[in-house]
């Protein structure tokens, strides 16, 4: 389909569903049903089997017409990780059940992967899934580092279904209803003071076999799809130049001459160069993907971004001096949204420490790059 034809379809849709007079949820459901949610998804599942790079055409037209946004951050795990995973490994029935409410935000998803004893070595999860006589499953275990678990209706869950199999072969992947009996979510307070993440305790949680995604024992392969998408999602979409963490610091530099020093200027420009190089790299990666030449996965972008965020936020504190010694709020609370721009420099610095841990530590990403991209010999047997 040509881009002008697609514009025609969007306009036709808008003619039938005027944003001004259509209730938000109704509009989003209709948009999904019209295949305009993610045009690269299959027909009937919110898309039209079109190339992914046509999505901006749709988004642009809709935005221009004042259509409601889909606030991406909140649905990040669903949209960025659960959806591509189930698209690849799920049944048509599962896709029909889960995709639309996921996309419209009616149902938030979270991820039950990491455990206290299984962080970087994720394949060693010990949460047990035992199959009952009726074919359904009963799950017991503890998960950690789980964002949005407290507001999620569904979770993607990795559990050990066969403890006697080699560790990568004894895992099965499920969708877990977070309202099921036995699911307990406890906030996990972080160094920022807030509780963005959670511990989730699973005690005798029943999961119907219909909620299993992929084959029994194939959980690791399914989880890898989720992880690769997680890294792409955390690597982030390219932002315009001057946006993001570096933009914030540059604006402070411009606005406050009293903070400037000669050495500070060079340090800031080093960071600007690194940020811009990272931004262009992400843009180039997206171009390659759009052209059907998938380069190495998002690991590189994610790796570079986390360290950049850490360096920029660390620099911001030393630039601000006095002011940086003050924090805004240590109260233990749920972040209503992650707007780091409105918090203190100290919050940005502390929150950025997690960037090189969440979604695969930098150490794991370096292993992935070294082994899968550069073809260096594997060292880890596990």
């Amino acid at each position, binding site marked *: 389909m040509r881009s002008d034809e697609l514009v025609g379809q969007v306009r036709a849709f808008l003619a039938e569903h005027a944003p001004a007079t259509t209730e938000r949820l109704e509009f989003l459901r209709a948009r999904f049903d019209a295949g305009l949610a993610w045009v690269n998804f299959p027909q009937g599942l919110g898309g039209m089997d079109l190339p992914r790079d046509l999505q901006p055409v749709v988004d642009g037209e809709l935005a221009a017409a004042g259509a409601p946004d889909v606030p991406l951050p909140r649905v990040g795990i669903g949209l960025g990780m659960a959806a591509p995973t189930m698209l690849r490994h799920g049944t048509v029935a599962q896709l029909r059940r889960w995709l639309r409410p996921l996309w419209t935000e009616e149902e938030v998803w979270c991820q039950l992967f990491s455990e206290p004893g299984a*962080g970087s*070595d994720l394949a060693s999860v010990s949460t047990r899934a035992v199959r009952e006589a009726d074919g359904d499953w009963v799950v017991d275990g503890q998960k950690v580092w789980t964002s949005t678990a407290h507001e999620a209706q569904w979770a993607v869950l990795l559990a050990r279904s066969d403890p006697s199999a080699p560790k990568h072969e004894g895992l099965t992947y499920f969708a877990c209803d977070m309202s099921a009996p036995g699911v307990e979510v406890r906030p996990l307070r972080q160094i920022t003071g807030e509780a963005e993440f959670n511990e989730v305790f699973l005690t005798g949680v029943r999961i119907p076999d219909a909620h299993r995604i992929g084959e029994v024992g194939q959980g690791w392969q399914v989880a890898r799809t989720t992880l690769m998408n997680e890294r792409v999602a955390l690597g982030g979409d390219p932002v315009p130049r001057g946006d993001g963490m570096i933009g914030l610091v540059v604006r402070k530099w411009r606005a406050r001459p009293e903070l400037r020093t000669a*050495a500070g200027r060079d340090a800031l420009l080093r960071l600007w160069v690194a940020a811009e190089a990272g931004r262009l790299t992400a843009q180039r990666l997206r171009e390659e993907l759009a052209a059907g030449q998938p380069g190495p996965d998002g690991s590189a972008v994610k790796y570079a971004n986390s360290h950049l965020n850490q360096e920029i936020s660390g620099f911001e504190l030393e630039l601000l001096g006095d002011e*940086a*010694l003050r924090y805004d709020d240590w109260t233990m609370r749920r972040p209503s949204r992650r707007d780091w721009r409105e918090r*203190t420099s100290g919050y940005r610095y*502390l929150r950025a420490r997690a960037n090189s841990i969440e979604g695969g530590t930098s150490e794991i990403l370096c292993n992935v790059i070294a082994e899968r991209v550069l073809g260096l010999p594997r060292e880890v047997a596990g």
Partner: protein
Amino acid sequence: MISLRYSDVEDELRASVRRVLADRAPWQAVLARVESSDPYDTGLWQTLAADVGCAGLAVPQDRGGAGGSYREAAVVAEELGRAVAPVPHLGAAMATAALLSGQDCGLLAKAAAGEVLAVLALPLSTRPGAGLPGTVTADGERLTGAVGGVADALPADLLLVPANGGLWAVSREAADVSEVISLDMTRPLADVTLAGARATRVADAAPAVAAALLAGTVLLASEQLGIAEWCLDATLAYVKRRQQFGRPVGSFQAVKHRLAQLWVAVTQARATARYAAGCLAEGDPDTAVAAALAQAHCGPVAVQAAEQCVQLHGAIGFTWEHPAHLYLKRAKADAIALGTAAHHRDVLGDLLTIDR
């Protein structure tokens, strides 16, 4: 030549202080305290200052002190950094240094004995050499004005305030001291406001403040060394214990090399901190260089150690219930306190005639 080793006396002092801190300020206690309404452990400070004699280490015996030296005071600072102990040792040491520069009016002896906690009312971020702040003025013996972001003012009995060229002692009760939500919860700052507060002049401001800032930068370097040491030790212990992929995390070469490099940096930090303390103790003409060098080196090493500590602990190091964040916040605040490393490099450039 300045000795860079720890003497036997210093080793014994370290052992005493470490014993007290292990008993009274394990990290769980520190973490619980920083969120309480009483963030400073004044009882612990009393023990250290009066009973162990830490408050008067740098004060000669004939002026009421313990007749030790800044070398010993630096050992104490190192241990207090190692424990991120919530005690006002930095503020107290800086005030003592300020009083030492002036004519003794009895106050020095009381401070040295730990009977009175005097604290210099300057922002913690004050850069040595940057000139005195002019935010408080004296009208006769009455002071009016404000000083923001003062460390250790919360538990102080007496504030030493620079105004109109003098250093003035003001009773804590005569000032409005309000706690600031601070990045470093183990050393919360306070904003001090004076509205015609009655004051007594105790010294000339310029030499007193200069002496206080010099002593502060030297002791802060040892505190930073202590922070780095704890972070390295805690990380080593963790990576030896923590298993992933069927082997200790500490057996992975990339982790080993980073920790080896951190150890080299900490070893260097120890040499620079010792050198600064030795110079200050002996009144060496190289003290200004030694102090700026120690700050330029130890500040970044403490931050690096604390950041690696969080990173190599993985998810657990990012949680509130693990002590790593107390050290990270202290290290980062210390990197700004009394001038950043970049500022101290700039100072060094001037001292060494590495011209602009």
